[in-house]
């Protein structure tokens, strides 16, 4: 049976301050450096003494790290609402210390200056192995209205809960691109 979608209203911890290439997820709140992650084939859980760790990123076909204040594209889905709920910021997550099957992942986008939620998407995944980690990518939290988001600081947040109830969170501050592009790359906003 599916996990209830309402059970993931987790308090968001403060996000990590970014990550170095190939470092994998950094702890959300322990402050400990990443340990040597192992993988228990029986449990299907990537084990790490410091517990579940998430790293929010971007990417449609793979997990791509995203740096603080990195400019991220506002992408148009081919079918949907257009300016209103037709654009998204590709979101992904890299995680360890969780069971990969049927993980429930919620991505949120918030205006960094006000904390106003501007987009969200929640979905279940069978997380893909990626080295000592697991990843999920190609998630499209739809933005309520693309135009006011252009060139604004945005918080990308992720909350993940595995089927055993283990949870982790992360967030990054990024900057939205300066246009909501139509298929020809021209800004649609008045």
């Amino acid at each position: 049976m599916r996990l209830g979608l309402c059970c993931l209203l987790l308090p968001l911890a403060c996000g990590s301050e970014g990550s170095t290439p190939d470092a994998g997820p950094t702890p959300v709140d322990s402050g400990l450096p990443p340990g040597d992650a192992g993988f228990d084939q029986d449990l299907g859980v990537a084990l790490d003494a410091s517990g579940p760790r998430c790293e929010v990123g971007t990417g449609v076909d793979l997990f791509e790290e995203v740096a603080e204040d990195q400019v991220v594209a506002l992408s148009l889905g081919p079918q949907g609402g257009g300016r209103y709920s037709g654009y998204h910021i590709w979101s992904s997550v890299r995680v360890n210390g969780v069971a990969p099957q049927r993980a429930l992942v919620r991505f949120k986008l918030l205006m960094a200056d006000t904390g106003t939620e501007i987009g969200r998407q929640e979905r279940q995944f069978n997380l893909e192995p990626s080295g000592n980690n697991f990843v999920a990518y190609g998630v499209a939290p739809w933005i309520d209205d693309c135009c006011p988001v252009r060139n604004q600081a945005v918080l990308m947040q992720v909350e993940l809960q595995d089927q055993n109830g283990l949870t982790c969170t992360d967030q990054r501050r990024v900057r939205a691109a300066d246009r909501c592009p139509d298929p020809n790359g021209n800004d649609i906003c008045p």
Partner: protein
Amino acid sequence: MRRWDLSYGLALLALACSGEKNDPPRPSGPPAWQVVLEGTPGALLRAHGTSANDVWIVGADADGQGPLVYHYDGQRLSKHDTGTTGDLWWVQADLSADEIRMVGERGRVVQYRPSTGQFSERSAPTTDTIFGVWGDDTNSAWYVGGETSANRGVIWRDDGTTISAPVPLPVATSSATFFKAQGFGADAVWMVGQRGRALYFDGQTISESPTPTFLPLIAVHGLSADQVYAVGGVADGVILRRDGQTWVDETPRGLPQMSGIWVTPDGTAYAAGFNGHLYVRKDGVWSEFEEPPTFQDFHAIWVDDQGGIWAVGGRLAADPPRDGVLVYYGPPLPEGIGP
């Protein structure tokens, strides 16, 4: 919410006829979800057919090698090369005994004649995407689409020779893309699109039918013009039912975006959408299928004449949509059906 009981599927299939005498033998076994295709380069966007042994599946052209087109004949699934490029968003397999019609990107209209095995291509006079087609014969088809980022729509009529816009063109096309059309004869055609827009053609004029939602309506289907469902949404989903003169909101609590709807002759409605969610309405109650066969997004659903359920989708937020999936619920399909 009450979950759909698989025993219903068993009963439904037991009630269905066993097919024509010349149908190839199929393996025996209880009905179950089967992943027929997954990981195709482009997303699969519609499955539709005339029977359980004549199913067409179309999809996106994610690798520039042409749109995905498959046909299942009850024994094998074969891949077809249309000789065209660009995504194909919709297919109608029952337009006539000798024509399968497909529509898609940049106004493309692709026709296939089973008698000759030939594909041919025409174009509507638009560079916009045609998302939907419905016709009651080859000389009376409707195409709907538009440019979603501009919230602009197009509607075309095809008399078999000329593709032209209806006059007058509905005002709603200036502010909404239209995604699907479904008719019940030449004088009863529904069209749905962005901002909860629903249009109805009564044989003379196209008029707007107010709905209780501003969410995009992505698909429409039903048994008659007065018994029709429209589904859609973005983060949140919506299901509307036409109850005679008005649209009634039947959205179950927590429904995510729905993109596909199909109603069987007995009135059972199936809806498919985001993250592999599948719903069925029976005895007036919507309930969710337990154990989805995929976590991909469904774009369309179709139920064949033997009760088999076909659902297609992929990563639909990507442009072009990619990573396609085709799932089937029913008795075991023949092994090694290909392609």
